[in-house]
Structure formats: C-alpha cells, structure tokens
C-alpha cells in the first residue's frame, strides 16, 4: 500500500499550507470497488439528510473490512504515515506552529487506540443523501488539537450533486460560533478543490485554515470520502491568534 502523499508535488501556502493531489492513489479503483455502502458505514445509526457520518479507523478495522481497505487504513494511521506527512509538511507545520513540539520521530498511535503525543485517524466518511439543497459546513477551522486534516474523495461516477471543498482566506478578526464555525462575512473565497474521484487534499490546521463545503443539491447518493486527521495530545493554538 502506497502513501496517499506519494504523488505530492507542490504545497500551496496562501492563505495557509495545503496540497491537492489528483489521481492520488494508483490502486484507487480497487478501493472504490470494495467500499462499503452507506448502510454499512452508518452501522445502525439513524441519520437525517446531509448528515456527516464517519467510521473511525479503530472501529472500522474491528469490523473485518476488505483486505485492501484494512491495509489502506492501517498504513494511514501508522508512524510511517506520520513520517510521510512530516517529510511533506514538516516545514509548513513548524512555520505555522513554531512552538508545537513535534518532529519526525514523535510517538504516534491510532486515535482511540493508545496514548501518544500524536493520534492518527483515517475514517470512512460520508454525507448522507439529501432531499433539499444545502451545505454541510460553512467556513470553519478544525479542532484546536488538530495538526493536519485531509480528505480523499470517492464519489460515485453518476454523482454531480456538488460538495466541493473551498479554501477561504480570513479577512477580519475571527469570531466563531459552535464548532469553530466562522461568523458570516469574515472570510473570502480563494480556491475550490473539486469533489472528484481520487482527489486528495491535505492542509495544516491553524487559526487561518478556513475552509468550507459547497452546497449539495438534492440527491439519493451519499457524498463519499475518507477523512484523515492528525491530532496533538492537547489543544495547541489560539483560534483568535490569526
């Protein structure tokens, strides 16, 4: 199993560090063909329209997934993957968070499966089908203990309902509501990462790492993705420090 960062070439740094990789996985077709359907991912949970549901790596690996998926998820919650991330983003991490005490050999574990400075997550995610148009999330930043966030998009071929990622630039002093949701009018659109098969986006999380998901039109299809997260053991940045 190859790292999803294998084809990383150029890090964008404006307005925050991120990388977009098209055709990220050479063996994407096999993963797509064996991905579980939405009921299996819901795993008995009730859901409403356009709701985000995830299966954590820890839970997923305990459910006897297809071997190709087990290998994929296991690698991307490993120390080896953290080193891949460090080799691509290490300078960007340090320039965004100068005081964050992490390095290439910082101890890691799979999230919910141990104690280490860094927890890695690779969860099988989806936004549920929706009867009305709407966005899952407006401009926001991720959790205050998250170092890196990432998404691999896996839409069904017939899915044209939307759900792209938008990169935003903070334009004012940040004010948040709820789950690090930026109040309206405090960011401007910069770029779109299309919800396209085998497209991977990863970014350094921080007070300027504002991103959003575009509206999704009514559809019977779920928005399919794999969500990557790399967390520090505690909150390490001030969201008002942008």
């Amino acid at each position, binding site marked *: 199993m190859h790292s999803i960062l294998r084809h990383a070439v*150029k*890090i964008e*740094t*404006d307005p925050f*560090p991120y990388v977009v990789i098209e055709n990220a996985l050479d063996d994407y077709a096999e993963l797509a063909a064996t991905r579980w359907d939405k009921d299996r991912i819901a795993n008995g949970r009730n859901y409403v329209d356009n709701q985000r549901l995830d299966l954590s790596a820890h839970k997923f690996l305990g459910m006897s997934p297809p071997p190709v998926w087990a290998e994929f998820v296991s690698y991307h919650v490993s120390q080896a993957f953290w080193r891949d991330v*460090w*080799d*691509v983003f*290490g*300078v*960007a991490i*340090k*320039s965004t968070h*100068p*005081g964050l005490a992490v*390095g*290439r*050999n910082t101890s890691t574990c799979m999230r919910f499966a141990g104690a280490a400075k860094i927890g890695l997550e690779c969860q099988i995610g989806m936004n549920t089908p929706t009867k009305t148009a709407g966005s899952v999330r407006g401009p926001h930043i991720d959790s205050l203990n998250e170092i890196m966030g990432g998404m691999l998009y896996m839409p069904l071929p017939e899915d044209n309902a939307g759900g792209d990622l938008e990169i935003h630039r903070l334009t004012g002093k940040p004010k948040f509501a709820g789950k690090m949701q930026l109040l309206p009018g405090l960011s401007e659109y910069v770029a779109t990462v299309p919800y396209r098969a085998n497209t991977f986006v990863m970014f350094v999380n921080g007070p300027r790492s504002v991103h959003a998901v575009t509206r999704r039109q009514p559809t019977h299809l779920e928005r399919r993705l794999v969500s990557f997260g790399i967390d520090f053991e505690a909150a390490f940045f001030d969201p008002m420090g942008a």
Partner: protein
Amino acid sequence: MTFTPCMAQAVLYTKKLAPAIASVIEFGNQRYTAWSVAPADSTVDFYHRAGIVQYLALDVNTRMSAIVADLNSPVDLPPVDLVTNNGTGEHIFDQASVFRNAHDLCAVGGFMIHCLPMTPWVNHGFYNYNPILFRDIAAANGYKVHWLSLCSRFEMGWNISSEAWPFVEKRPTELIDAMRSINGEIMICVIWQKLLDGRFRTPIQGKYLKDVEGA
C-alpha cells in the same frame, strides 16, 4: 543577522539557476536590509516575492518567523530546496554540526548558500573562514560549486569558483589583491548544489589527502 544586498543577490542568482525552488530554511533570523536589490518589507516578504513561498528560520528565539533550534545538534526538519547560512555559522561552536545540518536539510538537487566572515571581523563570532574550507567540503560531498566569491555585504563580487588562486597558501598574491579590492569587511559567499544522497562527509584538507595512511 542582517539580510544584506549580497545575500539577496545570491538568492536571486540561485533562483535563476533553479526557478522551481519553493522552500527555504535559513540559519538565523534575518533583518532585511537589501532594499537596493529588491524592495521588500521583510526577509520573508523578499522570499515570497521571489517565489520561494515556504519559509522557516532557525534561531535561538522566535523573532522574524524563526523557530528555536540549536545548530550544534541535528535539526529535525524535512529537507527543503534551499538552505542558507548567512552570517550565522560563525556564532555556532560545533562547525561540523553546522555544515552537517545544512547538508541534511537540503534536498538532493537543492542548493546551499553560505555567506560567512573572512577578515577582519575580529571577535564577531567564534570563527572566521578560509576559501579552502569550502573547496574541501564540496569535494568531500560531491557538491557542485556554482559560485565562490570574496564579497562585501553590499556586493556579491565575482565568481572565482573555477580559479585555483583562491586556494594558494604561500604568497597568495592574487588572493591578497582580490581582498584589497573589497572595501570594508570581507566575507566569503558560496553556492553549492547537493547532487548526491547520503550522509555528510567530513573533509580532510585537500593538501594533506596524499598523507593519509590507509586512504
């Protein structure tokens, strides 16, 4: 440290050699003074305007976009396209560690710029440098030498990397003439390209290579 016109010229020269350079690690935070070469609000701004968008400086404090790092020890960062040592290495006790860090932090195919004091620079730092050091480090590590000059803080000087006279030991007439042609304190500016993967190799001074038993 001061980001001088000489240093700005060296960076722009290197960027011309390799336009794809996008990331830099600087030894020492850098106060920008190179307005005669390129307008910029800061050294970070200078690099951004030059298209080098990933910037990190290593210093003993976090001023001017630096992170705290001790160059006497290995620095745990991934390699970048360009590593600069502009007036910093002379303040670090462990010289092998300075050049080893530059080597390790530079990607294969990437570049290193060392711009360091030669003379008089009395008590400026722990050390002053001779041209021979840069010839022999480059030889030991297979670096391509794109530039070597005696320079002032205002001018990069002229490229003498293909000359033999900068390394003459006894009666170095041409070297002394070149030093006399520079107003003020003299520095050495070198631009290397790292061509080979592998660990940093400590040089033996070239003139003694034939004396090494078992070599």
